[in-house]
């Protein structure tokens, strides 16, 4: 038995097909339902965070532990040869990959994971490279959407907030475009979705709308994906003005569909008020928990042949 992701690098969502995304989601569901504590027994996984992270590192390392694997690595580059002695990333990767069975990397420069995959002797999983890709976040988002909706197909999905700089919304839009979802983009004009994503949607024949506020579309949504508008990008007056349009309150959710779920990659600051937490629509903390299962699924598929039906 084999699967198409066995021994494969996971660098960019754009390299994954619809069927591969579905395989990851179904494997995450299976591992959430039926834990597999010995799956990675005797496997050593390198967890190399050249840039510090909280949720991504802790959920990845939890995923390895829950599958019975061993972890080597570091939480930031401060005490590494690369950080202190000026070693190239290429040399670091050559050495570290000779110690382990898989290599999870986060780095503050775009393209670092792709480069690592070219010098590594073992599969590389991208845990975020600068402003470029963060595929494991997208995979946990897809798993969460599937878990809450029972499908990924033809959903009404809104993205709110910083759509220009948020790599999360770019990758998730690209992935959901494979499932014929309809998109609604709500953002300040200076933080609107980049042209290259809009061009891709046009080329794929996907439907999308652009709005200034949530009001016109909120009652038709299945998924409401909030992101943080970074205060430092605006002066205080502009920021205060935007607050009313791009902050979600419980009151704004009156009349929405029962199956609506609110997601957020976290950390949130004040773009979702805490009264939303107590509504049945809030799902962002379960979403963060699902990061463990999505990363378990990736590890299981990349390192073993025990999942998939091929």
């Amino acid at each position: 038995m084999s699967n198409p992701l066995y021994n494969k690098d996971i660098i960019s969502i754009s390299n994954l097909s619809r069927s591969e995304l579905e395989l990851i989601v179904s494997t995450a569901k299976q591992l959430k339902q039926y834990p597999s504590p010995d799956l990675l027994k005797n496997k050593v996984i390198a967890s190399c965070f050249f840039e510090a992270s909280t949720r991504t590192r802790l959920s990845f390392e939890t995923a390895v532990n829950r599958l019975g694997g061993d972890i080597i690595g570091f939480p930031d580059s401060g005490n590494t040869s690369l950080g202190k002695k000026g070693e190239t990333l290429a040399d670091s990767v050559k050495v570290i990959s000779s110690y382990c069975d898989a290599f999870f990397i986060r780095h503050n420069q775009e393209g670092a994971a792709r480069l690592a995959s070219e010098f590594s002797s073992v599969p590389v999983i991208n845990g975020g490279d600068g402003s470029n890709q963060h595929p494991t976040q997208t995979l946990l988002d897809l798993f969460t959407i599937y878990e809450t909706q029972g499908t990924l197909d033809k959903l009404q999905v809104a993205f709110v907030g910083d759509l220009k700089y948020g790599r999360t919304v770019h990758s998730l839009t690209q992935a959901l475009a494979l499932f014929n979802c309809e998109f609604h983009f709500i953002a300040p004009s200076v933080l609107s979705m980049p042209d290259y994503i809009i061009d891709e949607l046009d080329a794929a024949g996907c439907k999308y709308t652009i709005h200034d506020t949530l009001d016109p579309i909120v009652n038709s949504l299945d998924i409401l994906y909030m992101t943080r508008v970074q205060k430092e990008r605006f002066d205080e007056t502009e920021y205060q003005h935007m607050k009313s349009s791009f902050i979600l309150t419980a009151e704004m959710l009156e009349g929405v569909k029962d199956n609506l779920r609110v997601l957020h990659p976290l950390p949130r600051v004040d773009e979702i008020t805490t009264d939303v937490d107590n509504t049945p629509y809030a799902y962002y903390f379960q979403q963060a928990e699902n990061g463990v299962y999505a990363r378990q699924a990736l590890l299981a598929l990349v390192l073993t042949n025990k999942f998939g039906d091929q």
Partner: protein
Amino acid sequence: MKKQLTVEAIEHGTVIDHISPGQGIKILKFFELSEGLQRISIGLNLPSHDGSCKDLIKIENTVFDQNQANQLALFAPKATINVIENFEVVKKFKVAIPERITGVFTCPNSNCISLNEPVDSRFDIKQAKSDIKLKCHYCEKSFLSGLFSELH
């Protein structure tokens, strides 16, 4: 009235013809042609057969290989290259936009990992409408081809 060639003929070398007007100077600059010792003639806004304008470059004792011709395609996709020997055209070919270009341009993204690691830059090239875009293999960002001639 008989039309007359307004740029002097060359004995050996290359004539790059059918360059879109305005691109001739950029090509000279990009290939650093004017920094060598060879004699170069450049014609700007010359009349073309179809009634429009074109730029033209003649370089003595220099032959463009296919790789250089493909780079040229990024700036002048309609250009033709004529190889001249003894004042005769011995070879003529059109430039073709390559699918990928390696080790030529530096990625304009200052935070791209390819800038400070032991790898060649790599760009996948896509033509959309009238634009030619180069997508970095590493940082995955796309740039209009015109940006590279300005950065060079």
